[in-house]
């Protein structure tokens, strides 16, 4: 039993070391954001002597920070709503008709889409969006809904086939329900556990995504999302690193707040999504 105790002690020590590795960059980011350049130059690691807010003021005043924040919220929220309208409905239709060639072919094409690396579509899709005059938020939302289809339909079809018996719908049809009514009032509510996972996976993906906004929105500054702002801010203000760090803090705050409040659901959702795909 002695070795057991020793092993546990070693585990704590190693985990604490890991904690230091995870928290140090975040701590340094936070303290540097509150320091003037002079103070940082004197000692990068010391705690700020006063709560200097000038960096934050400058980041917010010299940029449309709140506009970018609003863009990120808008793009994420609208995409999620559309994903929830389209993905489970499609998956439901497919899962009930896998014996018909049309549904089966569509399903196979969607699943194959999971292994297509984004770089393959990236170039032609950017050309296409230019031709369609969709280099804007609407175009970006279309792309998010499309790319959410592959994994989303795959997860929903698996879920529907294993957990929702056909008898449920047949009873509804006998009562004179249309197929659409049946889906809306019986099936969709039953999918809630998976829907929570789908919301979390896609919301984090869209909120944090960098490459698609770079391709679709980079030329129009008013449409920028937070990751895009972060990237462009770095290229413009690379000299004043205190400003940079305060911009990091500003972009981390929203996601951190959400994480602190919903950590249980978020951990379950993000790991659950990985398990199911």
């Amino acid at each position: 039993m002695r070795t057991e105790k020793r092993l546990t002690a070693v585990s704590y020590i190693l985990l604490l070391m890991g904690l230091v590795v995870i928290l140090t960059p975040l701590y340094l980011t936070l303290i540097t954001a509150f320091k003037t350049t002079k103070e940082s130059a004197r000692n990068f690691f010391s705690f700020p002597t006063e709560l200097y807010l000038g960096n934050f003021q400058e980041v917010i005043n010299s940029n449309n920070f709140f506009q970018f924040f609003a863009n990120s919220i808008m793009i994420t929220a609208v995409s999620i709503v559309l994903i929830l309208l389209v993905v489970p409905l499609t998956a439901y239709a497919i899962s009930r008709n896998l014996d018909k060639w049309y549904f089966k072919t569509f399903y196979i094409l969607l699943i194959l889409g999971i292994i297509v690396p984004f770089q393959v579509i990236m170039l032609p899709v950017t050309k296409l969006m230019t031709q369609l005059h969709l280099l804007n938020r609407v175009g970006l939302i279309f792309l998010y809904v499309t790319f959410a289809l592959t994994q989303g339909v795959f997860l929903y079809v698996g879920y529907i086939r294993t957990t929702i018996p056909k008898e449920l719908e047949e009873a509804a049809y006998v009562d004179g329900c249309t197929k659409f009514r049946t889906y809306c009032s019986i099936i969709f509510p039953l999918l809630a556990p998976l829907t929570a996972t789908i919301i979390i996976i896609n919301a984090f993906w869209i909120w944090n995504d960098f490459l698609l906004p770079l391709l679709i929105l980079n030329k129009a500054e008013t449409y920028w999302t937070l990751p895009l702002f972060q990237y462009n801010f770095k290229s413009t203000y690379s000299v004043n690193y205190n400003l940079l760090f305060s911009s990091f803090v500003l972009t981390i705050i929203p996601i951190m707040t959400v994480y602190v409040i919903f950590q249980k659901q978020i951990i379950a959702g993000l790991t659950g999504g990985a398990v199911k795909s």
Partner: protein
Amino acid sequence: MKNFNRHAHYFFTLPALLLYAIFFIYPLINGFLYSLTDWDGLSKTHKYIGFDNYSELLSDGRIRNSLGFTFRYALLLIVLTVVLGVVIALLLNRVKKFQSFFRTTYFFPAVLSLITVGLIWNQLFSQALPAFGKAIGSEMLSKNLLSDPSWAFYGVLFVSLWQGLAIPILLFLAALQSVPQDLLEAASLDGANAWQRFRSVVVPFLIPTLNMVVILSAKNGITAFDIIVAMTGGGPGRTTESVGLLVYNFAFKEFKFSYASALAMILFVIIGLVSIIQIRSSSRYEVNA
């Protein structure tokens, strides 16, 4: 109305079909067609040149260099993610006090965007590490390691792990917690030591998770883009130019659009092969597990 209801399931798939056809299938086919031309991405005309782009790819040193970096990076990322992921999950599984606090903190990097993580570390490498190095009088740490060709690779790998380990750790932890306690006790009664218990009792429960983690980190590694753009921009001297970044650079910075399309197709084939191998080997394991 009745007719609509009979075919309702077809209509249900219509929005998805349209989106998928226009924004996925059509570009995918187009991407292949572009790769057979000499288009620069801007001019009005282009001509068909067959597979010339592909044969040129094979003799392009920059691509070879980039593929070399990408494979080395992806391979190390997979191995280290699995090894460190399992080890940290074992540690977390062992401690009882503060377990949920540790879990919450270890998972936190997963919710941050890669571009922010990369930019933060880029700054820490250029500001904090040299300051630290000077303070402790280490010459090696007094410079920016990311601008040193032999160190940039490890810098990028380290940061990828800093962020990318979060989800695998929790997946492995969940798998560990699914190991039945009485099996472990039976094994120790039979005189199995810790290592034997781990190998013969715990590992079979980890294999499905292991497959998933390998797939996830392989895909992340082979298509790496955000982290490279944020940390090194492909430098110094193209030592960290991943294939994902190279496709972007060729197409949008150097106006070799069709050439970039051909490279993207190669990437597609590589990922396709990796997926097939993975699916084959994992179905073999599942029989055992």
